[in-house]
């Protein structure tokens, strides 16, 4: 019910808000996809990745380069981006799922940094720290994503599709196995689950969705730089998930929106906006373990009972 209201609001949004508001929510929808993809790992599989920007960035670069260097149609570019990110996740995940705990965190971080420095150093292809810009935005039947309203609806469609797919995955036997993994790996292995393969599969799926978000991000900005692969970007995805509520899918999506709105409003008043984000983050971890989403849900349920 609440979701339906939100969806109607989302449909009407570009006509209610100005171009500024439309752009803001477009960006929020893109980051929401990335945050939900990280939640599949963090919230459902219990794998805390500190390098999720790797797949976001690879998707963004794959879209940009497939257009600029291969002359690929940008619609195909999105598909290429998703597949390239999935492949990157397969390779990186192959090593990462072998370890757990802090080693897993460190390894995901290290791989992301590796890709970051590759993007900075490999100037001939990636344009180095200047990035690449000015590539085509997709269009279909005369509707071009150059129009912010179509861009918004494309991202809304991408978000709804991602949410639907991720929910399906979570409700499947595979999804249930991931939750088992999060709860007790020793028992899962004693029961006969191939835990490494389950983790790798989750890693690849998560990477694919992050790559999809990255591709949309590249299209939205018509520009991509190594920042998309940076440690700061990985950190922001983590913040979005924790802020919104780990393991609730919709929570991290809300977290992404809140994060971006905060960034916009707080950073226009003070340059210390990251400090403020940090304080809110600490409060979340200490007092609202289930994030904004969990807090809202509890509050609404309490309201319904009285």
């Amino acid at each position, binding site marked *: 019910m609440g979701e339906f209201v939100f969806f109607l609001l989302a449909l009407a949004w570009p006509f209610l808000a100005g171009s500024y508001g439309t752009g803001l929510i477009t960006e929020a929808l893109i980051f929401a996809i990335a945050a939900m993809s990280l939640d599949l790992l963090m919230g459902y599989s219990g794998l805390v990745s500190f390098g999720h920007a790797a797949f976001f960035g690879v998707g963004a670069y794959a879209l940009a380069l497939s257009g600029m260097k291969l002359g690929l149609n940008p619609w195909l570019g999105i598909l290429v981006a998703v597949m390239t990110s999935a492949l990157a996740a397969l390779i990186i995940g192959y090593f990462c799922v072998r370890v757990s705990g802090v080693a897993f965190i460190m390894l995901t971080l290290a791989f992301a940094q590796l890709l970051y420095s590759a993007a900075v150093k490999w100037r001939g292809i990636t344009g180095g720290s200047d990035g690449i810009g000015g590539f085509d935005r997709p269009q279909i039947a005369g509707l071009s994503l150059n129009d912010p309203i179509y861009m918004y609806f494309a991202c809304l469609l991408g978000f709804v599709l991602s949410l639907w797919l991720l929910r399906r995955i979570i409700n499947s036997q595979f999804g249930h196995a991931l939750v088992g993994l999060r709860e007790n790996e020793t028992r899962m292995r004693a*029961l006969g689950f191939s835990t490494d393969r389950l983790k790798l599969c989750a890693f690849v799926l998560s990477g694919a969705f992050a790559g999809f978000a990255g591709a949309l991000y590249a299209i939205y900005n018509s520009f991509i730089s190594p920042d998309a692969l940076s440690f700061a970007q990985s950190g922001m995805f983590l913040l979005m998930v924790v802020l919104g509520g780990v393991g609730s899918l919709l929570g991290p999506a809300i977290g992404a929106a809140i994060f971006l709105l905060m960034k916009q409003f707080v950073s226009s008043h003070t340059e210390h906006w990251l400090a403020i984000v940090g304080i809110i983050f600490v409060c979340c971890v200490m007092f609202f373990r289930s994030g904004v989403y969990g807090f809202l849900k509890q509050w609404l349920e309490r309201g319904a009972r009285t």
Partner: protein
Amino acid sequence: MTLLRVESLQKSFGSLNVTRDVTLDVGAGEKHVIIGPNGAGKTSLINQIGGQMTPDGGRVMIDGSDVTRLAPEQRARLGLARTFQKNTLFQRLSVFENVRLGVQARFGNSFDLAQRAAARTDVNARARDVLDLLRLTALAERRVASISYGDQRQLEIAVALAGDPRILLLDEPTSGLSPVETRQLIEIIRALPSHLGILMIEHDMEVVFSLADRITVLYYGEVLASDKPDVVAANERVRDVYLGASF
């Protein structure tokens, strides 16, 4: 036929030999009980059979084939199931989901991403049957963390049985249970499928002698005796070091 065979197993932690040349068999339908004082190396032995711990020497065999190098999940797929001395459950999931995962491991498809888990009525039905068998049906929707310790001990066994194993390892299933709960659990173990080979660690001598087809006595990592209950009870060394004056 020998379902499970442990052959000259060796394991040490530094200078501590927890398993010294241990050999034992479990046949189909057999209830084999391991006894021995605390720290004798009983749990370590179970861990090496289950694959949670790697032995330094010797072999573990299932149906005559060597599984010593196999991971726990590979052994499980050969029909080996176990419980843990310290409850190892999915604490934040429901009792039903704990058992359902056990069924899924064997009868479901964990790489099915499309179909809803709830739509696998065959898996759900088996999970309910197992809950029935262990008399946990009334607790099905409760979170594990919210049920009593005794019920959690019972759930340990339910989860292990979910995949219809052929060999069941039970590490002190009655530890921490009240006398009433212990008696209930013994009835449940007695009622388990008759083809099941059971290797069970137990402290309560009344339980041991009422259940065991065969008893192995471990003492400082070593097998003192491995035989029928009456023979073990009559063994001088066993009497000296373990059973004491009461037998």
